[in-house]
C-alpha cells in the first residue's frame, strides 16, 4: 500500500509498524534530564544501542520494561502503547529483557532458573499443583523440554542440574539470556550480554542468538560496549549521548560519523565487517 512512498532506507520500511517504537521519550530524575526526547524504531532483526556510560541506554530499557516512568513520550509494541501496562502485562505482551548483572537464584539449579522464564505460560495454577493433577505434571515436563532445548543452544545442557551459583559469571549471563528467550517474547532487550564473557562464551551466545532470531523473526535490541560485536551483529545501530540520539544507521555510517567519533568512539576505530569476533 505504501509502495509509492517507500522511503529510501529499503527493506525495513516494508514493515508498516515497527516491533518496538519509542516516540519522544523524556525521563528526568529530579532536575537531571536523562532522556531528552528520544525517538527510536526497532524492527525484527538485531538492533544495536550504543553510547558512552551515563548516556541513558539502560534507562531506555527501564522505561520499556516498566522500571522507570517516562515524563513524556510513548512506547509502542507492534503499534500498541505499553506505558500504561504493569511490568507483568508487558511480559505477556511479548517484551523480554536481561540485566547487566545476572539475577539468578544461586541455590536453585540452572534448569529451575530457566523454568522461571516460562512462569507466565503455565495454564494450571498452584491449586492444580497442590492436587498433583497429571495435566499440571505434563505441563511441567513440557516446559522442561523447552528449557532444555534452549539451554542446549547456549551450551548449558550439561550444567542444567547444577546449582546456578556454581557457574562462572559468563555462564550465568548465558542462563539469563536463555531464561529471557524461553518466555517466547517478540522483542528482547539485552543489556550488555557479552560483558564479562570469555571469547568462547561470546561465540556460543552469538550463535544461539542468531539461530533463535532467524527462527522466530525476533526483534533483538542489544546494549553493548564491545563495538566489534555490535558492528558485526547489528545491521542498524543507534547512538545515544546525553539522552539524545546523535546518530543512527548502518555500522559503517555510524562509525564514520564525526559526531559519534567525537562523543564516543574516538579516532582509530574501523568496522571489521568481514569477520565475526571469535
Amino acid at each position: 500500500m505504501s509502495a509509492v512512498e517507500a522511503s529510501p532506507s529499503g527493506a525495513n520500511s516494508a514493515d508498516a509498524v515497527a516491533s518496538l517504537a519509542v516516540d519522544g521519550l523524556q525521563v528526568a530524575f529530579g532536575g537531571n534530564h536523562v532522556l531528552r526526547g528520544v525517538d527510536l524504531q526497532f524492527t525484527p532483526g538485531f538492533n544495536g544501542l550504543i553510547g558512552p556510560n551515563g548516556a541513558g541506554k539502560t534507562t531506555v530499557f527501564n522505561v520499556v520494561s516498566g522500571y522507570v516512568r517516562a515524563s513524556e513520550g510513548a512506547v509502542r509494541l507492534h503499534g500498541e502503547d505499553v506505558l500504561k501496562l504493569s511490568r507483568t502485562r508487558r511480559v505477556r505482551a511479548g517484551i523480554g529483557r536481561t540485566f547487566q548483572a545476572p539475577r539468578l537464584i544461586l541455590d536453585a539449579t540452572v534448569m529451575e532458573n530457566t523454568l522461571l522464564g516460562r512462569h507466565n505460560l503455565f495454564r494450571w495454577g498452584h491449586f492444580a499443583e497442590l492436587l498433583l493433577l497429571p495435566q499440571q505434571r505434563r505441563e511441567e515436563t513440557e516446559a522442561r523440554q523447552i528449557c532444555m532445548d534452549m539451554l542446549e543452544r547456549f551450551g548449558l545442557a550439561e550444567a542444567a542440574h547444577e546449582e546456578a551459583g556454581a557457574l562462572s559469571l559468563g555462564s550465568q549471563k548465558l542462563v539469563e539470556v536463555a531464561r529471557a528467550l524461553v518466555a517466547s517474547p517478540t522483542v528482547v532487550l539485552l543489556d550488555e550480554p557479552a560483558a564479562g564473557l570469555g571469547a568462547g562464551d561470546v561465540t556460543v551466545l552469538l550463535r544461539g542468538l542468531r539461530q533463535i532470531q532467524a527462527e522466530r523473526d525476533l526483534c533483538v535490541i542489544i546494549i553493548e560496549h564491545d563495538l566489534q560485536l555490535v558492528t558485526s551483529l547489528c545491521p542498524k545501530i543507534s547512538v545515544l549521548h546525553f539522552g539524545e540520539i546523535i546518530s543512527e544507521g548502518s555500522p559503517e555510517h555510524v562509525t564514520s560519523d564525526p559526531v559519534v567519533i567525537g562523543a564516543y568512539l574516538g579516532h582509530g576505530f574501523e568496522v571489521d565487517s568481514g569477520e565475526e569476533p571469535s
Partner: protein
Amino acid sequence: MTAAAASPRPLYPPKPPGVRRYREQLTTLGVFVFLAFLPWIPILGWTDIFDSGNNFGRGNLAFVFAYGAAAVGFNLLVGYSGTLGLAVAGLFALGAYGTAVLSAPSDAREALAGYDWPFLLALPVVCIAAAIIGVLVGFPAARLKGFFLAIATLALGELIVTIIRLDDDVWSGLKTNGGTGKQVPQFLIPGLDRILSAYMLSLGALVLMMLAYIVLTNRRLGRTLKAVRDIDIATGPLGISSTYYKLVAFGLSAFAAALAGAMWAQNSSFANPSTFRTRLLVFLLVVLIVGGLGRKWGPLIGAVFFVFLRQKLQDTQKLLFLILGIALILAVLVLPNGIAMLPKQVRDSRWVKDLQRRLESLSDFSP
C-alpha cells in the same frame, strides 16, 4: 538438533548410582513413615524420651507437632519468599482463641463461654480467616522491606494479642475473658482420651501441612518464591508479580500459624494472652534458624530440637533462655544453614573428603 534427538538430555536431575539414586524419595518416605509411626508412641506408652518424670511426654510430642506446623508456614514466608513477616505469634493466638471461643458452649461461665460451633467447623473457618487477615496485612506490608516489614508485622501480631486482652466491658461479644486467660473446650476423637485426641489432632495437622508443603516447594511455587527472595526486583521481566507471591506466602503462613495455634490450645487446654507475646515469636525463630532457614526439613528438625531442649530444661526456666541463646549463636556460626544441612556440610567437609581420598587410594593398591 539431530544429535540432541539421538541422546535426549535428562529433563530432571540425573540419578546417581546405588542407594543415593533414591535419596530424595527415601528421605520423604522416611519422614512420612516416621510420622505414621508417631501415633503408636503414646499407645505403646513410649513417651519417656520427651518426659521429665511427670507423664507429660505425650503432650510434649503434640507441642512438637504444633510448633512444627507453624514453623512450616513460617519457613515458606521467611525462608522461601524472604519476607520477614513477624505476625506469626499473633496469628497463632488467633488460631488458639478463635477455635476456643467459637467452639465453647454459650451457656457456660465466663472462662468457658462461647458460640456453640462444632470444633470441626470452627477450625477451618478460623484458619481461613487468619489466611485472609494475613493477605490483607500483606497488601501494605509487601511494599516494605527488611526491618520496616518486621516492625509493621510485629505490630500486627501485638495488635491481635491486645484485642484478645480486651475486657468484657469494652467488647462483650469477644468472650476471650480478658487477660486472665481462657479455658479451651476439648475436642474428643471418639474412643480416645483427652491427651491422646489432642495428640492425634496435632499430628494430623502437621501431616497435612507437611504434605502440602512438600508438594508445593518441590514444584513451581517453591522456585517462584525463591525468585521473589533472591531476584526480587528482576522478577518483573519474568512475568512474576513479587507482590502477589508475597501475599500467597503471607496467606499460607497465616493459615499454618492459626492451625498450629488451634492445636496448641487443644493440647494445653488453657490459653493466656501473655503466652503469645514476642517470646513465642522468638521460639519460632529459633525453631526455624536452628532447623535450617529455607531448607525443606528445617522446621521439623528445629521443632524436635526445641521442644526436646525445653522439656529437659523445664525446671530451670532461666537456663532455658541461656541455652537457647547459645544454640542460636552456635547455629549461626557453625551451621549457617541449620541442622538440616548438617549431613551435606559433613559430606563436603575437608576431613570427609580427605578420608574418602584415602579410602580410594587404599582400594587402588589392593589386588
